[in-house]
């Protein structure tokens, strides 16, 4: 254990290159992780972050370059070998078994055994509870993991990876599904690891996290290393500029988000009215009104009922009672088809599970919802289909090798644009956007934000859900704040501010349990 006291890197990659079918994913990238540091790895989607960590953990073999761990050149061929050697990875998607208990998940593959070689359940449950208590979580560890909220599942994944006496911990956007309270807890855990001389590679899209948590930062762009150095030696603006490959002055002109000023409403009649949406234990009489050209933000913590409200309006969430009308006409609830017919379009929160159809091409994904309009006597009109697809690929600047490319091969930001194209080609009156910029790179994010402005400017009503407060604050003309499935306040124009939203959430009774899904 001598080497961890020295400043030599614990894990280092040197001049690593990786190509996929001739496409360069990594181009001579070098990176070193020192014991006791939190090293941020940032970059737009497609910059090569994922490839780099996969090379480090043995998922991919590099075409060139080497990996040095604890002073020895290593070549892991399986992630398991890297894990056994002390390099733990926490992936963005929770890679656990939903049907098994929390305790089983924590100790999967290394369960405490009784003398007979059977799993010592009592001991396992006790150790699991202790382990989680260390992260400030108290849940019944015998419950199936899948019954718990995403935030808790993420913490279980972290607890699992970190408890294996790791020397290096790689975290891939660990906060993307966490509540603010859980984020704080995660930061404490990361700092604890740092104190234990663990090297943490922290991949994130959130600049706040870089400056709050990390000591060094490395920026990748298009598979190349464009910056590496101490966090204290770089400004936010320069960091954003490095990620985007743009001038500092240019970024300055854009601001933090790409939202412009207020939207001009064309008239005051509501285009969407939802009244008294109620579902036992989920929604409690939620009412929302959106006017033409207005962006209404839906704020609240994970589990506050934001997604459920969106889905209820769209007909994808069962309701006990409530009503929705579009441009004054009552909508039949419980049918996405009816909602689409009435002019509502929704961008779902979970891009992978509810958005893209991975086996289909970009073209087929874009026109999926618009198929009825493209159908003549049961056949798909190829001409009209291609017109739509060409229009939206250029309008949203979707980067695909051709409309025939399988959508699964696109980066997250481009997949999101495909989904936006899918709902926009319905020519909707009301857009419901559930986390439209989650998990996409800075460039795509800015484009999506400007697009929302643009659409509102054209008279669409927009319901915007985002866990990033600044997005709601800067992008919305009115903000409805939800808590525990009920509206706790509505802010208009000048009242809107991050502090006011947080006050409203804090005011209304006790803190939420954090067990429900967002």
């Amino acid at each position: 254990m001598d080497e961890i006291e020295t400043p030599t890197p614990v894990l280092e990659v040197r001049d690593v290159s990786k190509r996929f079918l001739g496409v360069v994913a990594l181009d001579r990238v070098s990176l070193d992780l020192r014991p006791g540091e939190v090293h941020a790895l940032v970059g737009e989607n497609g910059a090569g972050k994922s490839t780099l960590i996969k090379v480090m953990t043995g998922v991919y073999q590099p075409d060139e370059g080497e990996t040095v761990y604890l002073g020895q050149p290593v070549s892991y061929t399986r992630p398991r070998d890297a894990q056994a050697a002390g390099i733990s990875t926490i992936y963005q998607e929770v890679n656990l078994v939903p049907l098994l208990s929390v305790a089983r998940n924590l100790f999967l593959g290394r369960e405490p055994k009784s003398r007979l070689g059977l799993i010592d359940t009592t001991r396992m449950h006790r150790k699991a509870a202790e382990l989680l208590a260390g992260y400030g979580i108290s849940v019944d560890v015998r419950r199936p993991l899948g019954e718990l909220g995403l935030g808790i599942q993420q913490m279980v994944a972290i607890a699992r990876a970190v408890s294996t006496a790791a020397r290096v911990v790689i975290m891939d956007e660990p906060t993307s599904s966490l509540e603010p309270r859980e984020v704080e807890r995660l930061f404490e855990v990361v700092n604890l690891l740092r104190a234990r001389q663990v090297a943490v590679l922290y991949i994130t899209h959130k600049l706040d996290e870089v400056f709050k948590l990390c000591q060094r930062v490395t920026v990748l762009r298009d598979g190349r290393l464009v910056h590496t150095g101490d966090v204290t030696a770089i400004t936010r603006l320069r960091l954003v500029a490095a990620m985007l490959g743009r001038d500092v002055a240019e970024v300055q002109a854009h601001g933090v988000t790409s939202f412009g000023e207020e939207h001009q409403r064309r008239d005051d009649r509501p285009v969407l009215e939802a009244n008294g949406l109620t579902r036992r234990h989920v929604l409690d009489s939620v009412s929302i009104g959106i006017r033409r050209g207005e962006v209404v933000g839906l704020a609240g913590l994970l589990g506050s009922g934001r997604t459920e409200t969106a889905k209820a309006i769209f007909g994808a969430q069962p309701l006990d009672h409530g009503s929705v009308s579009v441009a004054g006409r009552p909508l039949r609830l419980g049918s996405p088809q009816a909602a689409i017919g009435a002019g509502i379009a929704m961008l779902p929160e979970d891009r992978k599970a509810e958005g893209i159809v991975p086996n289909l091409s970009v073209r087929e994904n874009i026109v999926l919802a618009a198929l009825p309009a493209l159908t003549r006597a049961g056949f798909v009109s190829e001409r009209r289909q291609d017109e739509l697809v060409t229009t939206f690929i250029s309008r949203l600047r979707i980067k695909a090798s051709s409309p025939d490319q399988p959508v699964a091969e696109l980066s997250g930001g481009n997949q999101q644009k495909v989904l936006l194209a899918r709902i926009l080609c319905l020519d909707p009156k009301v857009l419901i956007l559930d986390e439209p910029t989650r998990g996409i790179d800075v460039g795509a994010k800015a484009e999506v934000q400007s697009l929302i402005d643009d659409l509102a400017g054209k008279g669409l009503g927009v319901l915007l859900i985002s866990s990033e407060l600044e997005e709601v604050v800067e992008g919305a003309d009115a903000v409805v704040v939800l808590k525990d499935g009920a509206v706790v306040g509505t802010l208009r124009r000048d009242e809107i501010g991050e502090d006011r939203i947080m006050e409203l959430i804090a005011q209304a009774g006790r803190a939420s349990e954090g067990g429900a899904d967002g």
Partner: protein
Amino acid sequence: MDEATLTRTLPAQRDLRGWLGDRGVYLALALLVAFNLAFTANFATVGNLRLQLIQVVPVAIVALGMALVIGTEGIDLSVGATMAIAAALLPLYLGYGPWVAIPVALAAGGVVGLVNGGLVAFVGVQPIVATLGLLVAGRGIALVIAQGRLTELFDPTLAAIGTDRVAGIPITVLIAGAVAGLVGLVVRRTTFGRRVVAIGGNRGASVLAGLPVRRTLVVVYVVSGLLAALAGILDTARLSAADPSFVGLLIELSAITAVVVGGTPLSGGRVRILGTLAGALLMQLISATLIKHDLPDSTARMIAAAIIIAAVYLQRPRVAT
């Protein structure tokens, strides 16, 4: 165990494997034909080719419906039993003429599909369970209808459908070809075909995109039932006898094999019509080749099993990063 190790395959390997999973059936078929041309006596005769095609018809027709079902990430185990029900109904209604009996038998297949589709789409039963019920019960129903007997049929129209040729091609083969063309057109060009693969690829996304998911699923199972009934009718016509005990026995396995070997993954989201036909032909030729070379049918089954395993292996999920 470890998901990451499954997806670790190198691109070059992945491409070859992907190609084999997609198109390997044509290569296998070509190799088998070449083998037969070289080593099997009387293989390249009109009579033999015609015989092979006639024998492949029921599997091919059933497999075309099965391909649609599998495309939606479903499966239909009841097809053999449906053939038996159609066969059992024919003699009962032949008294009113074949143009009454045939639609009745087809309708019965449609009803079976309606039950399957209803269970899958509206009740939410898993396809394998929903169709298992009628796999078990269906043949029983057929035997009750036929009072457990083999019935010889003496209808000239039916016999003509079963055995006549047009321009040297058996009518049953022409019917199978027409069905294949129709299903292929539906899959490639129609909205319905697009819905089938979308539902198989991501059902949740299909619901949120406003697709009529349930209706589509019901139609898919009804089509499978109709095609199974058609296969039962053609088989009965060819034999001029309704034999509910044996018609279509274990055909669900051959059909699933043909579909999967032909490049349609069991996980849904894609339908390969030409591949399915090639798969059916491949299975038929394997058993014919072995019989010609005096190897027992049991060997043919083992080879078929090996081919299924190989096909499923080649179609393991490829991109999961």
